[in-house]
């Protein structure tokens, strides 16, 4: 009994407990948790990256090792590979938490699920999107892309993967109740990712030709901002439906 004395009294009818951490602190806690979990089972982290590296090296082997010709298809190869590899990790975005009951506890915590899922999506992007964006310039070099195009590639893949993670969050939340949701998830997400593919590949092409690519980049950024605004709300609604 004496050990329990530090636990505060329960009967106080406070609506919002004074000791509740702020929304930013909660989001940060969620982000930290997901990063920690990801590093404890690193195989899931490496998978999308290995896939991306493999796909982009298969093309030179299959088509031609001539850099001048590879350069023409480089933007398409990079973007198709980037979209497919970011899909690969999406299935696990909410699934593990749904299975062990921790997602349910967050849904019942009285905290806004929207913020929690936004933090989870941010963690997912840091773990898959950002590494992809960082190795995309390397893959581009191996496809014969000139060095002056690399900043454009880095920027466009960074913005594109943000949108992919957000789209994927909605898809993953919607397919939470489905067994082996991988195929369904790609069917749901990839059509919606087509604008990202178009603007991303276009920005990359312009960068390779040495032309200004700012307009496409702005459109990619607009898509990302739109996703940030809407996707966490949609994902939270879908998670609530699927937990029932």
């Amino acid at each position, binding site marked *: 009994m004496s050990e329990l004395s530090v636990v505060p009294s329960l009967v106080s009818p406070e609506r919002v407990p004074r000791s509740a951490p702020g929304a930013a602190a909660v989001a940060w*806690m969620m982000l930290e948790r997901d990063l920690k979990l990801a590093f404890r089972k690193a195989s899931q982290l490496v998978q999308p990256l290995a896939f991306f590296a493999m796909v982009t090296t298969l093309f030179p082997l299959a088509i031609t090792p001539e850099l001048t010709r590879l350069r023409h298809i480089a933007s398409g190869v990079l973007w198709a590979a980037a979209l497919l590899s970011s899909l690969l990790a999406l299935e696990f975005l909410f699934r593990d938490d749904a299975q*062990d009951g921790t997602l349910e*506890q967050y849904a019942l*915590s*009285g905290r806004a699920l929207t913020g929690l899922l936004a933090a989870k999506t941010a963690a997912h992007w840091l773990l898959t999107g950002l590494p992809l964006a960082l190795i995309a310039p390397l893959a581009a070099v191996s496809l014969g892309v000139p060095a002056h195009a690399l900043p454009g590639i880095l920027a466009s893949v960074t913005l594109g993967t943000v949108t992919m993670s957000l789209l994927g969050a909605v898809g993953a939340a919607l397919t939470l109740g489905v067994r082996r949701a991988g195929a369904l998830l790609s069917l749901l997400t990839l059509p919606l990712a087509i604008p990202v593919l178009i603007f991303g590949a276009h920005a990359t092409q312009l960068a390779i030709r040495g032309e200004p690519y700012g307009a496409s980049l702005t459109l990619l950024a607009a898509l990302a901002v739109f996703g940030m605004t809407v996707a966490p709300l949609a994902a939270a609604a879908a998670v609530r439906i699927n937990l*029932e």
Partner: protein
Amino acid sequence: MSDTTLNGENVHLWRGERHVLRGVAFTVSGGECLQLTGPNGAGKTSLLRTVCGMAYPEAGRICWRGRDVREDLPSFHAEMAYLGHEPPLKMELTGRENLHYWVGVRRRFAAAELDAVLARVGAGRWADRPVRTLSAGQKRRVALAGLLLMAVPLWLLDEPTTNLDVEGQHLVGALIDEHLAAGGLAMAAVHHPLAVAERGLRRLELGGV
């Protein structure tokens, strides 16, 4: 009415073709524990999930402090804790980390408080081991520590003694007794009667289908 009372009025719930809850009514006040019994499939878990807002009843309502909980689910959730069949723990994290990320989104607590609840449930010695390496009963004790740490008035427990040894079952009884003595209330679905003092105990028998 702002005193801690939970009541259900004429709750009807269908799961597909099955009419699981047929006009269930109950009242639990501060200092009371409602023990739900009934055969498998009688709707004990369904009732608990309906109370915490994860299942939508076709008819009837659940009131907390005299207000329908659906009017403001977040503030109801902030005052309740639900423990299901499986302890909601991440296998890759230690017990202590689990509690940090699970309860930490609800309220701030000091490390000393965390140590105190871990000691109370007898989980102090293995709190720094990954949950993956713990036995089912040890995981259950870590989950009970989370329940204490939430420091909320309403406990909704689904088979809280599952996987626990005799001493652990008495621990659950003692924890509920202390919770009731502090003015809290509990609702527990059980197969074996809880080791709870008779004074605050109320019973609800759900029928089979």
